[in-house]
């Protein structure tokens, strides 16, 4: 059984998918960080509809 050499197109496609994956992971991390920063802010207030529900 022999393995065919990977085509240049597949390498390029893999690089693009890997890059996009990293960008999306970074975006998720940034939105998470933003959420933490916003809710930790002194000026942050829960919306009136959410207050006292628990």
């Amino acid at each position, binding site marked *: 059984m022999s393995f065919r050499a990977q085509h240049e*197109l597949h390498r*390029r*496609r893999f*690089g*693009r998918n*890997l*890059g*996009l994956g990293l960008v999306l992971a970074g975006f998720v991390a*940034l939105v998470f*960080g*933003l959420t*933490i*920063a*916003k809710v930790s*802010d002194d000026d942050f207030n829960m919306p009136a509809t959410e207050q006292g529900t628990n």
Partner: protein
Amino acid sequence: MSDASLNTASTAQPGEAGFGDFFALLKPRVMTLVVFTALVGLLAAPVAVHPVVGLAAILFIAVGGGAAGALNMWWESDIDAMMKRTRNRPIPTGKVSRDEAFAFGMTLAVMSVVMLWLATNLLAAAILAFTIFFYVVIYTIGLKRWTPQNIVIGGAAGAFPPMIGWAAATGSVSIEAVLMFALIFMWTPPHFWALALFMRGDYDSAGVPMLTVTHGRRATRVHILVYTVLLAALAIGAAFTGIGGPVYLATALVLNALFLRDALAIWRRDEAMAEADNYRIEKRAFRLSLWYLFAHFSAILAEAALRGLGLGAWG
């Protein structure tokens, strides 16, 4: 058939783009200027911003600027293919199709504006949206191919990032933000006209009505001097406002003296003199202009840092 059209026909075949090709659509070199000036605007503002919010704001401003760059390349792929400086961009080489570039640019434009709004405030997002609209619709699609003042108009789009950074921090636009805008706005024409003087063939062949083509090279030299004088007055005057101080004043005095020296030399020269030394002065002025903007915004940043330490401005 011209050489340029032959070149376009032979290379514009759709292929499968790599990650780097899409990244190149964002004009990474222009993006560095956007990131730096927006960061200075954000940090020079008299309001402390949470580091994560600040990071997000700069990132989304950069993405918005990149989106404008991608939409610019989408519209200008025909003239990009004709100019030596731009013919290796992703669309003229066929790595990315025009439709892909348009979809990529529009998606990033909308996403960056919405995310900047969520991360900071509506004003900052509105100015970012206006900047993208101004650069793509007013400048690229509307006026660039019609008026020799294209550089002046395009400069306005590049001047907005520090104002967006300031608005992201403060939620408002003040005189300091307008001054930072004006600094880049007045700097852009002499910077690009110096380039146009020694990159003469490129703009001629693309049919872009650069001042050098429509009004001649003598008029361009006069324009460079006039804009540099106005820029110097503005840059030095800013030293006595809220963003200025002794460090900024010293920086502005040195760099404006050097820039004025070069602008005067450019004005005194004619084409024969410039060709004789291969546009030495014009090239020197162009290189200096890059340092000029970097140093001015670094000085604004230094003044902000000094203010943070209680050593601010004029005491």
